[in-house]
């Protein structure tokens, strides 16, 4: 029986090594079943390498001859050098840093292990193992290890271990309990063999020259098993997080240029690179003033706004902003310039301005001329009809101008005006133009304020109620219902009512060649109410007439 043949130290070491093999193999199988999830395959490699290392030590202890012991000692190095590479591969893949796992990087990482394996295969040298040994009182053969390549491998192992830790540490600070648990158990899994190896190198263990590091890997195996079963290691993995954020950054329809504290460009997404029209390499590392000459103006809140990139007809306008990037201590560690294309919007604005001028000036001038010449016709019907039509053309022009001004105001900050003042003006105007209409007006309190844009809305509604009214007694009533946050203005008339088709078109928000309203007035009501963040409701009155309720938020801070 082997435990009777060998000494107590050998039996103890063998037992512990076999435990580490059993735990490592079991954990490797569980990890194998999780493939192709990120980190599963390198974790299998890590655990298999550790199991092989332990196995070689057991065979070395059992070997009867010195050459056989040296052979197993050498073969054990295959496992030793695979452990740190597999660990780093696992840490990078599991935390989503897979861009470092391209073939050139992996090949570079594999150079030291490959040389080590080659040295093992070649044999007959003392680069790894110096073939001098002593036999202890416990019967264990102690080999001198520490050839020049031994130091290289040791340093390399610690370096890769540290790099892996740097990647895993991020998990410990995660908001998710599962990731924190995974991070802590993974670090425990690494710390156990690490501490053991340091202790062995310092001569702290009485293991007769046998490196007990792989034994400590049984602790790693238990930690990994715990992470797999309790914290869903490999099942719930953080790998997509980094890629997803990068994907959003690269794919968003907005330019983003990241700057360090000195104003040098450290990153830029694809949209920004395309907008700047220069290669990525010419942007990264450059001062932002060289890339975006207007940067200082954009940084100043008072002068921030539009940014123009490109020359001539190909130039485009962007709405730009600069936002500081801060760390957990609220210290500024850089800034990000974001910008999105507003060229279409700017062009539309220019067209509106031209349209506004034509509606305000040209139509009025032309209709005045028509009016003047029509008067020369005398008092006939032809003269009257031409003058009436000219007035209607001018009225349409006026409505168009109102609509254009409405859109212009959407760009401006919403200005609050007293509701009473707005309604006073509208009522006064309609009483002036329609003296035969009885306008009943319930004047609201002076302190109630609403968006100034509503003047056009109420003007149209009240004028509409007065104009499209028939009969001997024509009444228009204006009431106000005040709530804590909102105010409702109810305009009623006893006219024939608005055609359902008109209100349907306005409600649906679109016209076609076959389905359209008769003018611009109701559109101005809808657009104006929308801009004021309110709503309009139309209802028929019994027996006749219309009730229009405009409900808008109060801006007086009530």
């Amino acid at each position, binding site marked *: 029986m*082997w435990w009777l043949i060998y000494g107590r130290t050998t039996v103890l070491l063998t037992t512990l090594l*076999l*435990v580490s*093999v*059993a*735990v*490592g*193999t*079991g*954990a490797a*199988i*569980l990890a*194998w*079943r999780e*493939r192709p999830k990120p980190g599963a395959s390198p974790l299998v490699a890590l655990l298999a390498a550790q*199991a092989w290392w332990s*196995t070689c030590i*057991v*065979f070395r202890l*059992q070997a009867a001859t010195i050459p056989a012991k040296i052979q197993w000692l050498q073969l054990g190095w295959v496992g030793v050098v695979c452990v740190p590479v597999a660990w780093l591969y696992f840490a990078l893949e599991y935390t989503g840093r897979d861009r470092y796992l391209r073939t050139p990087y992996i090949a570079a990482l594999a150079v030291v292990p490959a040389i080590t394996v080659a040295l093992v295969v070649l044999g007959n040298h003392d680069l790894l193992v110096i073939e001098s040994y002593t036999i202890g009182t416990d019967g264990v053969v102690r080999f001198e290890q520490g050839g020049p390549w031994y130091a290289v491998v040791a340093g390399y192992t610690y370096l890769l271990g540290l790099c892996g830790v740097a990647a895993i540490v991020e998990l410990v600070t995660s908001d998710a309990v599962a990731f924190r648990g995974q991070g802590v158990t993974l670090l425990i899994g690494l710390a156990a063999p690490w501490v053991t190896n340091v202790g062995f190198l310092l001569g702290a263990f009485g293991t007769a020259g046998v490196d007990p590091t792989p034994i400590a890997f049984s602790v790693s195996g238990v930690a990994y*098993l715990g992470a797999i*079963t309790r914290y869903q290691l490999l099942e719930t993995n953080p790998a997509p997080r980094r890629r997803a954020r990068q994907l959003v950054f690269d794919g968003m329809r907005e330019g983003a240029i990241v700057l360090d504290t000195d104003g040098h460009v450290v990153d830029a997404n694809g949209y920004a690179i395309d907008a700047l029209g220069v290669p990525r390499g010419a942007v990264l590392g450059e001062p932002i003033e060289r890339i975006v000459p207007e940067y200082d103006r954009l940084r100043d809140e008072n002068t921030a706004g539009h940014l123009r990139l490109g020359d001539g007809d190909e130039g485009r306008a962007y709405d730009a902003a600069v936002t500081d990037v801060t760390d957990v201590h609220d210290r500024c560690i850089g800034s990000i310039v974001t910008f999105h294309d507003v060229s279409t919007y700017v062009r539309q604005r220019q067209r509106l301005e031209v349209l506004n001028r034509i509606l305000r000036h040209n139509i009025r001038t032309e209709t005045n001329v028509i009016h003047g010449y029509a008067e020369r016709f005398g008092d006939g019907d032809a003269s009257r009809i031409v003058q009436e039509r000219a007035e209607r053309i001018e009225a349409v022009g006026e409505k168009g101008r109102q609509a254009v001004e409405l859109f212009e105001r959407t760009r401006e900050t919403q200005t609050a005006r007293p509701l009473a003042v707005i309604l006073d003006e509208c009522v006064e105007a309609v009483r002036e133009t329609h003296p035969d209409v009885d306008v009943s007006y319930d004047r609201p309190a002076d302190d109630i304020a609403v968006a100034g844009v509503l003047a056009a809305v109420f003007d149209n509604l009240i004028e509409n109620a007065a104009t499209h009214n028939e009969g001997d007694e024509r009444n228009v009533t204006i009431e106000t219902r005040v709530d804590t946050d909102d105010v409702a203005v109810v305009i009623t008339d006893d006219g024939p009512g608005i055609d359902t088709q008109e209100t349907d078109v306005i409600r649906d928000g679109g016209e076609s060649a076959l389905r359209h309203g008769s003018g611009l007035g109701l559109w101005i009501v809808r657009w104006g109410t929308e801009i004021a963040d309110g709503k309009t409701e139309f209802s028929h009155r019994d027996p006749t007439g219309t009730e229009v309720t405009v409900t808008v938020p109060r801006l007086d801070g009530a």
Partner: protein
Amino acid sequence: MSSQTDSPSLTWDGTRSVYSTLAALFAYGVRAKDALVYSSAYLVFIAGVEVVTAMIALSLPLSPAPLVIALLTFAVYVGDRIADAEVDAATSPERAAFVTRYRRLFSIGTAAAYGLAVALAILGGPTALAIALIPGAFWILYASDWLPSLGRYFSRLKEILVVNSAVVALAWAVCVVCLPLAYANHAFTPTAAVVFGYFFLDTFVNTEIPNLRDREGDAANGVSTLPVVFGVRRTRHILYALDLCLVAGIALAFHAGVLGAAMTVGILVGLGYALCLAWFVGRTERYGRLAIAGEAKHLLVVAVVVALGAAGF
């Protein structure tokens, strides 16, 4: 008054209690049977017994070999059950449901079993370790997409007539015979060759019996087995022929002095039992039970051998 009313109640409660206890025991029994059959746990015991049979036949000293093979059997067979649970849902819904219900437990259990088996195999030296890794290597190659071309090649072996069962029988015979040899550091003697041949052919026969149940599914999936290619009746004849070949081989080995009397009798009794089971092929549709009965033959063999040994043979 109260005693009069209580007595019948107590009697009734007592009867009910006995019934509920019996029902609970029956339920536990059914669950234990399910656990043994659906998880293939009975195979674990039989696998250990096969190794013990080989060790007796080869006069090998006591070693962890039976335990290692038992652990490997559990890991590989239950691992297969886990991997094939979705496919099994169509052909064996109860078994698939059982495996799915205890999937996590089985997953950890099989991993631990394989880890322990490998660790124990290391005590037998490099050869024992290599043998212990054979079933796991086959399992990985069959069940995985790792190394796709190699995986596809091994997957295709499953579809080739005779080769599919022969690969399983070969792996099994190597493990059962060579592992205890490796532990004992014993040479591969003519006796070992006879025992190896016996386990190889016997496992081949036992592999083809479940194929009778799965013949329709195998035919649909393009897997060539004896029942798919030759039909049920001819398969029965082939199984007769294989068992009779074994009888002849064992008799010759005894005649040549390679195999002891007790082992020869034990194996021949087992083969007689196997021939009886082969008679049922085509005459029953309970091939699942027939397969279990075929595996249980090893219990009969070792019982006969131990009994004869105790009687001084």
